[in-house]
């Protein structure tokens, strides 16, 4: 269809346009046979986020539109959705910048996951895989009175993995997950990486058995969708590559860890 609104206008002019057309995938399994796209017109300013737009639709136009939200500044991980074909957190995604030249933004639920309703997906398999890698630290039995001495370099190596907010953007962009939900998935492998690399952890061998096992790091096909999708700019692929290497020299790594733990309560040089 010829678009009169955007004809002859520069991208800047379109950006300043007062309304956006928000296309949302709707699906209520109780009522609908299959998902369909519904379009809403939403007013906007240069600062409007996609979440603001959804919130506007919900409060003013159609209260039955359902989506998850909470912190609205990209730290809780509730609102990961598929915007214009790529996964992102809608709360920190600017609306004017997400529009195509006809002023349309398309919002769908995270792909490859069962839809509960509209933009809400069922993350059960996601959390199961998370639990499967034993995300908790198993520290040495004889804890010191004060802290374990961990060097700033060791912290820097795992720091980025700790900032993962478990939003599921990587998981649901992963092609391997699309083919089978028994793959552990980038989020859990990143968590596993965090624990394996932590000098305080006493069971790196057991972890490598899981994350280096049949459903673990070796099933990654280095597609890089997880890096592209991550709203926090983390790098699960690199963590997976590291896990692969460590799993290949598991025994030696376990010995190194045991050696390191002997000095865990002493100050670094």
């Amino acid at each position, binding site marked *: 269809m010829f678009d009169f609104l955007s004809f002859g206008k520069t991208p800047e002019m379109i950006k300043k346009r007062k309304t956006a057309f928000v296309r949302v995938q709707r699906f209520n399994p*109780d009522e609908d046979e299959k998902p369909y796209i519904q379009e809403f017109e939403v007013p906007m300013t240069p600062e409007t986020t996609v979440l603001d737009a959804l919130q506007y639709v*919900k409060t003013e136009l159609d209260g039955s539109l359902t989506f998850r*939200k909470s912190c*609205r500044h990209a730290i*809780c991980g509730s609102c990961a959705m598929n915007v214009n074909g790529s996964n992102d957190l809608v709360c920190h995604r600017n609306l004017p910048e997400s529009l195509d030249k006809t002023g349309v933004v398309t919002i769908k639920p995270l792909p490859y996951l069962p839809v509960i309703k509209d933009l809400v997906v069922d993350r059960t398999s996601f959390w199961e895989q998370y639990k499967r890698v034993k995300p*908790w630290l198993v520290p040495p039995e004889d804890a010191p009175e004060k*802290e374990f001495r961990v060097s*700033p370099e060791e*912290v820097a190596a795992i720091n980025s993995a700790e900032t993962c907010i478990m939003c599921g953007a990587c998981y649901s962009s992963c092609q391997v997950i699309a083919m089978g939900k028994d793959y552990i998935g980038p989020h859990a492998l990143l968590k596993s990486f965090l624990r394996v690399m932590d000098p305080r952890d006493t069971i790196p061998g057991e972890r490598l058995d899981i994350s280096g096992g049949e459903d673990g790091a070796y099933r990654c096909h280095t597609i890089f969708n997880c890096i592209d999708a991550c709203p926090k700019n983390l790098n699960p692929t690199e963590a997976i590559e590291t896990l692969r290497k460590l799993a290949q020299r598991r025994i030696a790594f376990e010995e190194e860890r045991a050696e390191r733990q002997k000095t865990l309560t002493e100050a*670094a040089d």
Partner: protein
Amino acid sequence: MAHNEITHDVIIVGAGLAGTWAAMVAAREGVSDIGVLSKIHPLRSHSGAAQGGIAASLSNTRPVAGTGPRGPLEEVPPGAEASDSWELHMFDTIKGSDWLGDQDAIEVMVKDATEIVYEYEHMGCVFSRTDDGRINQRRFGGHSAPRACFAADWTGHVLLHTVHEQALRYDVKFYSEWYCMDLIMEEGICRGVVAMDVLTGELYTMRAKAVVFGTGGYGRAFAITSNAFANTGDGVAIAYNAGVPLMDMEFVQFHPTGLYRHGILMSEACRGEGGYLLNSQGDRFMNTYAPEKMELAPRDLVSRSEQTEINEGRGVMGDGQGIYLDLRHLGRDKILERLPQVREIAINFVGVDPIDAPVPIQPTAHYSMGGIPTTLDGQVLADADGALVEGFFAAGECACVSVHGANRLGTNSLLDASVFGRRTGYAVVDFIRNGAQLHPVSGDPAAENRARINDLLSRDGDENVEHIAQELKWTMTNNCGVFRDGERLQLALEEIKDLQKRFRHARTMDKGSRFNTDLLTTIEVDHLLQFSEVMVAGAIARTESRGAHSRTDFVKRDDENWLKHTMAHKPMVYEDEDAGPRLSYKGVDIDWEKYPPQERTY
């Protein structure tokens, strides 16, 4: 067993730091039958949004000798004299609370602080480190020593994940996306809760020997707020409706550095690392208000200073409602290392990179000091005299042990939630071990709540729930904000009354049962309307200025009349429908020898 009935030994509502700590501790100690309800996934809890740090007097860093209170920090060398102590932490907290904090509780908290930080560390928390491998510490507002242990500027996130993981380790059962609707109270004994499985819309009567609330704060009653959409104070409202009093509800902290117009938190760590606040004339105006501590004065003071600058026409941005937070002099490396999240937020939401330009900010509703009154072990109080509600515990922001009094110091909230969450966990274990009973429930509470939901769903008025909420929030922000006065508070009270009436004609647009977030919003707004009234009523009664409660018509602190906690009870059914909350007062625990009230200057 009746249909839709679930029983547990312990039911914990809310899976933020306090709730998860309680659950984790109880499970670790061997009480295995625990159910944790959360209306969002546990890891989405708002504890994770805390940025700056958690306070503990570890004495790991100190200012370089001779550089003054704002100089660079260095590690305390081994064997050197400790630069910090729990006594100092305690005094800072008491002074920060404007002497309204209960000093026995504060003592418990600051003494447990070091222990709990080490426990976090042993559980796998990835703290930022000093060069010799100790936990790094930074400065924070109102603290007289560098005391905030941190993990860059996502401390809360790291702590929450750590505790949640440990809870999974001990096989705690989480009910994710279950909404707690009601508390089952009979004869003053708490017997469980009614909860909705949001996915199906089904209601369940959940009976338990002990119920723990860790439902978080009520900052969503304000339009400009740093709180998440979920922080609607449900637990506080539910407890209030069940006949439990609420304490010190009028004290709401306004954080000085919320992002301009969004209210999103720019961590206090920005100032802890040395950031400046500038007005439209480029002055560091804190010079006038707190010459000694400058930007690192407590939050209430800084917020008031900002608001004064704004009111006197020295604000920035189009409408003059902003103030600049200047981080440029910290340098690129320090910002990237210590404040990466803050930078990301500023770039994403106002398009300003703190490395190159000052960030526009404004005061934002942040923390609710008030809540459900509890003992040091999280046991909920039934009245001002110290009677207890059997089987009902609370911890975290929704509770008011009163460690924060009239104003909380930065980094003390993570500490409060952790310490009292843990204590509550142990208390619950004792309670169960000492032969707690599963009390019978008469009637069918789930059916009663089903009726309430059906009533809400059947309403076909023309009022929009969200519009009512918006009006309430702006009323609260404008009239019950940083500065308050009798006249405007009265106005707010009338407005709330009016909104409560209008709410009865509000309609829910979504009538389905599957994942009906529209219905949840309606219930949440109902809750907002209920406790906002308590907040305003408490504020009207308190004719003094203390901590975060600052009245322009009563500018002085009045220790003679007001050194006491407000306790608000819901009016009895036979009382007038329009009667506000019944207010009574409870004394403050003060050690008159050691920490008598003094003038509070910074």
